[in-house]
């Protein structure tokens, strides 16, 4: 039984890797587990082990070439079936690719190809698929010999791969018994279907159930992730995995800001929305972002997008979970307008009537846990943004002010930034400028 040599998916971010060298020549004997070839990923050179023992029968990619992840770059034949190896270095013809193509022969019983012409013997096992379909199949790890062809000239086309993927997602292959056991236990088979071709057996299901039992402490009630929870989970995990997050913390003396707010509140009429410290921070941060464009940025991992406009998202705790409605062009708005708009967005978020538009397009996020008594924390960036400011509580504490030990209103700010986008010093300068305006709020008007 011949075994295909597959390029393993070693990196989340790369579709192809460089084949650095073959450690064996065609015709050499290989032993399962010994190094067979070397690839270069974005991080390192890696030796890849032989997937089986036998003879390296053919090599489909030469050293120095780019090879797609999950593609077949060679074949190991068992010692007894290995053909005498020809001295030609180029890939062997299709007919020499045994076993894995056998299923295809059945699909072309008359051994005819597109257009119905009789195929030469060495082409009879070939799968006919459009380049676009092959590309997608390779990307998604779809074995072409399991796909039903519906395209022109009995060719597999893109829609066939998509149909296969939809079906694979919907119904993982499983034995009927496994399906019944899983259904009874409320286990989603998709969660334990790592291999598209493998059939899930009863033993797999029981193992998964046992693992679930073992992992969960007694008295646990399982609840499926709600759509909001799922979004939060994805975004937070994505943020943690992709971004290089660094958190800076700094203390600010908010005494003057507290005084200013009280003075302002005293002047407000009944109809005015009473600005909170969050509103003051939105105002200060938005205007500082205009001066620190690298903090007012988004990234897709390949590029950095500096935003001309400042749209500040504000984290809101709702029954359905965390939401971050966006205050558009916050740098251009006054305190009362910000307070009014934020109050309205918060109300809509709490009532569950906020729209996706109102939750998207932010360029920076502020999250305030001060009202819950938190001093400092490490907020997680709201992707694709480059930074987030965590606001702690303001509380009276002993401090040195103008050379005197006295009681001041102190707070902590926690700025998490994506080090891929911006370095520590500019982030620290931004944080310093924010602190300066908190401590000397009259500077805002300069």
């Amino acid at each position, binding site marked *: 039984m011949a075994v295909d040599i597959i390029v393993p998916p070693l990196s989340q971010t790369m579709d192809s890797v460089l084949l650095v060298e073959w450690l064996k020549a065609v015709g050499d004997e290989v032993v399962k587990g010994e190094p067979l070839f070397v690839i270069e990923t974005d991080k390192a050179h890696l030796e890849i082990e032989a997937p089986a023992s036998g003879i390296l029968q053919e090599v489909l990619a030469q050293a120095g070439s780019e090879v797609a992840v999950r593609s077949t770059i060679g074949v190991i034949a068992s010692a007894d079936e290995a053909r005498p190896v020809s001295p030609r270095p180029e890939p062997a013809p299709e007919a020499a690719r045994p076993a894995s193509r056998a299923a295809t022969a059945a699909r072309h019983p008359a051994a005819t190809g597109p257009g119905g012409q009789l195929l030469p013997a060495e082409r009879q096992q070939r799968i006919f698929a*459009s*380049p*676009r*379909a*092959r*590309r997608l199949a390779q990307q998604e790890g779809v074995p072409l010999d399991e796909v039903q062809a519906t*395209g*022109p*000239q009995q*060719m597999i*086309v*893109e829609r066939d791969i998509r149909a296969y993927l939809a079906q694979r997602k919907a119904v993982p292959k499983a034995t009927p018994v496994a399906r019944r056991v899983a259904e009874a236990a409320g286990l989603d088979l998709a969660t334990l279907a790592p291999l598209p071709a493998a059939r899930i057996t009863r033993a797999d299901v029981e193992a998964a159930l046992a693992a679930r039992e073992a992992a969960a402490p007694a008295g646990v009630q399982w609840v499926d992730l709600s759509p909001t929870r799922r979004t939060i989970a994805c975004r937070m995990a994505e943020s943690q995995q992709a971004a290089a997050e660094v958190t800076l913390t700094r203390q600010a003396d908010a005494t003057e800001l507290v005084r200013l707010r009280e003075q302002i509140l005293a002047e407000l009429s009944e109809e005015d929305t009473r600005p909170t410290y969050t509103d003051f921070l939105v105002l200060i941060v938005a205007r500082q972002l205009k001066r620190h464009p690298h903090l007012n940025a988004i990234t897709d991992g390949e590029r950095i997008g500096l935003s001309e406009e400042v749209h500040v998202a504000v984290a809101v705790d709702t029954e359905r979970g965390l939401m971050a409605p966006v205050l558009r062009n916050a740098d251009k708005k006054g305190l009362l307008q910000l307070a009014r708009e934020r109050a309205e967005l918060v109300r809509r978020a709490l009532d569950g009537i906020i729209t996706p538009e109102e939750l998207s397009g932010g360029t920076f996020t502020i999250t305030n846990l001060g009202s819950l008594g938190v001093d400092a924390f490490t907020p997680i960036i709201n992707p694709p943004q480059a930074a987030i400011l965590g606001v702690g509580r303001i509380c009276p504490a002993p401090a040195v002010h103008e050379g005197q030990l006295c009681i001041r209103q102190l707070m902590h700010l926690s700025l998490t930034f994506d080090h891929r986008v911006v370095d520590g010093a500019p982030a620290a300068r931004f944080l310093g400028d924010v602190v300066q305006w908190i401590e000397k709020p009259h500077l805002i008007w300069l």
Partner: protein
Amino acid sequence: MARMSIAEALRQAIREEMRRDERVFCIGEDIGIEGGFGGAFTVTLGLSDEFGHERILDTPVSETAIAGVAIGAALAGMRPIADVQYGDFLFCMMDQLANQAAKLRYMSGGQVSVPLVMRAPVGATARGAQHAQSLEAFFCHIPGLKVVAPATAYDAKGLLKSAVRDDNPVIVFEHKLLYGSKGPRSERGALSPIGEVPEEEYLVPIGQGIVRREGKDVTIVAKLLMMYRALAAADILAEQGIEAEVIDPRTLVPLDKELILASVRKTGRLVIAEEDNLTGGWAAEIAAIVADEAFIWLDAPIKRVSAPDVPPPFAPLLEREYVPNEEKIVAAVLSLF
């Protein structure tokens, strides 16, 4: 915005360029003669009243002479707009166009240039094989020539003005069925592509194609008359749930390749419609480019809808069979699904 036919738009372009630049003049057969049509298709009608017969220059029936005078004048610093009554007659000029006009700038190391505009009507219109060919591919094949093929009044004016200002020889292919369906020289079966043309000065840059209709399922590339047939085909296909994207390259050399490639990357299918004969045609070149540069995005073979490899027939019934129509384009598209 003024609404006008392609013939009127071309006339306006010539008038504006002649007013703008004294070096611009027209040369051709019967283009300014008293009581004449203003060329074979009325494009120069009335221009001799304003510019006189020295700048609207009528020649004997000798295409060789037209080409010789125009190319010589261009070499000497003038900016001639020459025309032939039927594109087919360009073959008479072939040595001067292919061996002289196209090559002199290159061979002189840029010391001379040939800012020539050569207008040529193409397309089958019941006038027989010597007055009906679509010659675009011949001229696309010659390095040193630019080739444009406007299909709307807006493009006709904008591209002709760009051609006059270009320092290289530019062949402007115009389709006989697109000049307009009214007037003394309108051809049987002519379309009436009356289009909006801005009052103010504008140019259509040479080398920019345009998406005439957006779609996600198949890309149809077509120019001149075939562009309209492709749009009609797209309407029929839409009824069957297939959204065709129709691309009009407008300029054939230099080709806006990326526009076509981007569309194919989106749709995965390509049909090229042209009125020229199949073998060695312009459609074949587009197909080759896409097969080469977007192969991996293709979900079906590339189809050409071209005229068969026979001379354009005289008999109207045969001509109708010869020139590709929307039904043939629809059939080619459907074969890809």
